[in-house]
C-alpha cells in the first residue's frame, strides 16, 4: 500500500507549504474510517463526492459503508480530520452532507467520460486525487494499462517482467481533470448537467462532437445532443453516421428535431429523414413551411438521383434584368442560398434560359441585360438522372453546380458539387 503514495518533500525554503500527497481512488476505496476519539473503525470508505464548481473539483462529501448494518451514511468533507490510504479520521458531526455533483466511484471509475481536449470518450481505470492542506482535489483520470494492472494487483509483477525482459517501463496515461466531462452524474445515465457542459464542449469541432456522440451510450448521447444549441446540434448531426442520425432524431422531441433539421442544408436533412419510416412525416409536419416542402420534394425523389440531393433555392433572375440590378441583389441572397456564384435566368414560366457566373457579371457593363450575356450551351440534368451521371457532368464541364430541369425545361433546383461528392464518397471504400 505504502508505495502507491508519493510524498513530495518540500524544501526547507518553502517550509510553510503543507505537504502534497497523491492518492489513487482505488487505494482509498474500502479503507477504514474511524472517529478521532475511538480506535476501531466504524465504517469503510465507499465513495467520494465532488463539486464541479472549479476546474479541478474539490471533494465535498464521503459515502461510508458501516461495519455493522447495511444503511450507507454520508459525511460532509468538513468532518474529515486526516486521510491516508491506511485510515481516514473524522470527527463527530451533526451536519448533513451537501449533495455532490458527481460521485467518483459510481459516476467516474469504470465509467465513460469525455476528454474534451482529445474529443474522445474514455473508460476510466483509476482517478488520481491530490491531498493537501486537508483538501482532496480531483486531479487526473488514469486511462492506461497501468491503472488496470494496479487495480488487478499485477502492477509490480508485470512492471518487473517488462523491465527485465524488454527494458520497458509501462507508462501512466492520464488526462487532466480540466479536460474531463463526467457524463452520468448522479448515477443516472443521461443526467448530464447542461450548464457545466456548455463551456467545455463549446469549442469542439462538429466532426469531433459527432465522434463523441457515436461513442456514448444511448442516454448520454441523447443528453449531450439535447444540451447543444440548435445550430451546434445541426452541425454535429450532419457529421454523425447515418445509423446514429436515425437514433438521435427518432429519440428526440419532434419539435426540436424539426428546428435542427431546418438549420441543415435541405439535402442533408432529407437524407436523415429518408430511412426513418413513419416518424419522418411527424417531424416534417413540425418544420417551417418552406423547409418542409423542400425536404418533402427531395424525399419524393430517389436518394441516388439528382432530384434527391438538389437544393431548391438558388439565385434566379429574369432575362430582362440588368447586370447592375442583379449584382445589387446578390449580397442579400447569400444567406439563404447555398449556390451564390451562379445566377439562373428563367422566363416568367420558370423555364430555364441560361446560366451566368459571378465572374461574367463582374466583367459585363452594368447596364446590359442578362439576356444578351447568355452565350454558351446549357447543360442540365433531370430529377431522375443518376448521381453517377451527374458526377460525370461535373467531371466533364468543371461546374460547381448543375441545374435540374423537368421535361418541360422548368427549373427544379440545383445540384451542388459537394453534395454529389459526399454521396459518392460512400462508394470510395468499396
Amino acid at each position, binding site marked *: 500500500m505504502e508505495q502507491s503514495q508519493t510524498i513530495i518533500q518540500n524544501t526547507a525554503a518553502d517550509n510553510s507549504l503543507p505537504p502534497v500527497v497523491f492518492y489513487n481512488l482505488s487505494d482509498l476505496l474500502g479503507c477504514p474510517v474511524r472517529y478521532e476519539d475511538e480506535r476501531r473503525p466504524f465504517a469503510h470508505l465507499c465513495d467520494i463526492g465532488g463539486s464541479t464548481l472549479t476546474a479541478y473539483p474539490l471533494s465535498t462529501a464521503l459515502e461510508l459503508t458501516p461495519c455493522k448494518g447495511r444503511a450507507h451514511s454520508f459525511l460532509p468533507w468538513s468532518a474529515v480530520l486526516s486521510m491516508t490510504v491506511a485510515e481516514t479520521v473524522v470527527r463527530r458531526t451533526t451536519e448533513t452532507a451537501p449533495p455532490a455533483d458527481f460521485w467518483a466511484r459510481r459516476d467516474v471509475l*469504470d*465509467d*465513460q467520460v469525455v476528454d474534451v481536449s482529445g474529443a474522445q470518450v*474514455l*473508460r*476510466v*481505470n483509476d482517478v488520481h486525487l491530490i491531498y493537501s492542506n486537508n483538501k482532496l482535489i480531483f486531479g487526473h483520470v488514469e*486511462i492506461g494499462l497501468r491503472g*488496470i494492472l494496479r*487495480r*488487478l494487483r499485477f502492477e509490480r509483477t508485470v512492471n518487473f517482467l517488462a523491465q527485465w525482459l524488454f527494458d520497458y517501463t509501462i507508462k501512466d496515461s492520464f488526462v487532466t481533470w480540466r479536460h474531463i466531462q463526467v457524463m452520468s452524474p448522479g*448515477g*443516472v*445515465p443521461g443526467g448530464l448537467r447542461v450548464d457545466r457542459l456548455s463551456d467545455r464542449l463549446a469549442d469542439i469541432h462538429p466532426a469531433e462532437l459527432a465522434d463523441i456522440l457515436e461513442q*456514448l*451510450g*444511448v*442516454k*448520454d*448521447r441523447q443528453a449531450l445532443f439535447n444540451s447543444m444549441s440548435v445550430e451546434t446540434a445541426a452541425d454535429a448531426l450532419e457529421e454523425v*453516421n447515418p*445509423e*446514429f442520425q*436515425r*437514433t438521435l432524431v*427518432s*429519440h428526440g422531441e419532434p419539435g426540436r428535431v424539426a428546428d435542427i433539421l431546418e438549420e441543415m442544408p435541405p439535402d442533408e436533412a432529407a437524407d436523415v429523414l429518408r*430511412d426513418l*419510416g*413513419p416518424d419522418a412525416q411527424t417531424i416534417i409536419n413540425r418544420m417551417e413551411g418552406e423547409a418542409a416542402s423542400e425536404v418533402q420534394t427531395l424525399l419524393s425523389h430517389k436518394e441516388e438521383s439528382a432530384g434527391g440531393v438538389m437544393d431548391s433555392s438558388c439565385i434566379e433572375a429574369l432575362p430582362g434584368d440588368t447586370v447592375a440590378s442583379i449584382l445589387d441583389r446578390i449580397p442579400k441572397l447569400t444567406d439563404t442560398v447555398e449556390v451564390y456564384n451562379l445566377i439562373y435566368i428563367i422566363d416568367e414560366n420558370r423555364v430555364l434560359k441560361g446560366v451566368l457566373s459571378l465572374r461574367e457579371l463582374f466583367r459585363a457593363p452594368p447596364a446590359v441585360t442578362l439576356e444578351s450575356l447568355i452565350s454558351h450551351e446549357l447543360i442540365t440534368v433531370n430529377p431522375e438522372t443518376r448521381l453517377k451521371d451527374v458526377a460525370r457532368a461535373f467531371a466533364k464541364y468543371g461546374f460547381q453546380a448543375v441545374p435540374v430541369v423537368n421535361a418541360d425545361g422548368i427549373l427544379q433546383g440545383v445540384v451542388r458539387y459537394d453534395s454529389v461528392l459526399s454521396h459518392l464518397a460512400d462508394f470510395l*471504400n*468499396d
Partner: protein
Amino acid sequence: MDRWKKWKSHLALFALVVGPGIITANVDNDAGGIATYSVAGAKYGYSLLWVLAPTCFLLVLVQEMCSRMGVVTGKGLAALIRERFGLGISFYLMIALFFTNLGNVIADFAGLAASAEIFGLHRWWAVPVGAFLLWHMVIKGSYRTVERVFFVACVFYVSYLISGFMAGPDWHQALRGSVIPNTTWDSDTLYMVVGIVGTTIAPWMQFYQQASVVEKGIPLKHYRYSQWDTVAGAIVVTIVCYFIMLACAATLHSTGISIADAGDAAMALKPVAGRYCAGLFAFGLMSASLFGAAILPISTATSICESMGWERGVNRKFTEAPHYYSLYTVVLFAGAAVALAASKAMLIPIMLFSQVVNGILLPVIIFFMLRITSDKTIMGAHTNSRWFNILAWGGAIITASISILMVVMTLIQ
C-alpha cells in the same frame, strides 16, 4: 385496406431492426452445435426432439434481455458489466470469454476442415484460405457489407431442411418424439440433453447480440420489432436443429451407425441417404463453420475492448483500433492454426476445456444480466416485470444448473 397499411408499416420497421437476433441465432448453429445435434439424432433417434422446444424458450428469455439492455442503454454487455460490477470481475470474465470463444473458433475451423475434405479439398488448403478470406473481409470491408454477407449466409441453412426431408424420416414417430418426453433416463442421456441446451445457449451470444443491437442503433420505440427479431431467430435456429436431428435420426439411428462429430455425420449419411443428402449436409456444415469462425473473433475482440475501454469497431481502421484488430487476428489465426495442427485426439481435451469454461461462464453472465435488467437506474422503466423476473430467474436457474451439471459430467467422464 387500412389493415394492410398498418401491416406494411410494421413490416417496414421490422426490416429496419431485423438482423442481430437472427444472425446471432444462426451462428449458434456452428460446427460444435451441428455436431451435438447430429450425435443426438444418431444416438437417440427421435426420442430427444422434445428437448428443443423448451431450449428455444430459454434462448428467447436470455437473448431478449440482451437486446433490451442494448436498446435501452446503447451500451454493450461487457461495458455494462464493467460499469456495474467493476474492473476485477470484468477482467476475469473476459479471460474466460476469450478462451471459450477460442475453443469455439477451433471447433469451427475443424468443422471447415472436415466438410472441405468431404468435397475433396485438402484441409491444409481449405483452412488457411478460409481464415485469410474471413480476415480480409473484416479488415477491408465495411461493417454493412460484412453484415449483408452474413445475412445471406443464413439462407444456406435451408440445406439442412432439404437434407432432413431427403432422409425420409418417419413423421409419425418424429411428431411423437417432439411432443412427448418419452426418454429412458441414464447418465448418457442426461449428458446429451445437457449438451444440447449448453451448445444452444452460449455466452458469446449475449455479448454479440447486444453489441449488434447497439451498433445498429435501434431506437427504444421500435424495441418491439427487436423482440420479434429475437423470437424469429430462436425459432429459425430451433427448426434447423430439428431437421439436423431428424436427418440423423431417420438414417443413422435406424441403421445403428455411431458418429462422433458433424463431419462423421456427413460421411455416414452418404451410403444411407444418398450422395446429395450428404453433400447438402456437408455444405451446411461448411457455411456454418465459416459463419461461426467469422463472427466469434469479432465478438471476442469487441467484448474485450469494450470492457477494457479500448477503441473498437469494424468501422475503424487498424491504426485507430490496434487492440481490437490484434485480438481479432490472434483469435482467428490461433483458432485456425490449432484446428490444423492438432490431431483429432488432441482436439478432444481442448474442446472439453472450452466446454467447461463455457459452462462456468454462462450462469455467471446470466446472473449479471438479471441484476442489470432489474436495476432501475440503468434500465429506467424497462426493468423486468415481476412475471418476467419469475420466469427469467426460473429459466436462469435451470440453464445455470444444466451448465454446471455439464461441467461436472464433463469432468467425471
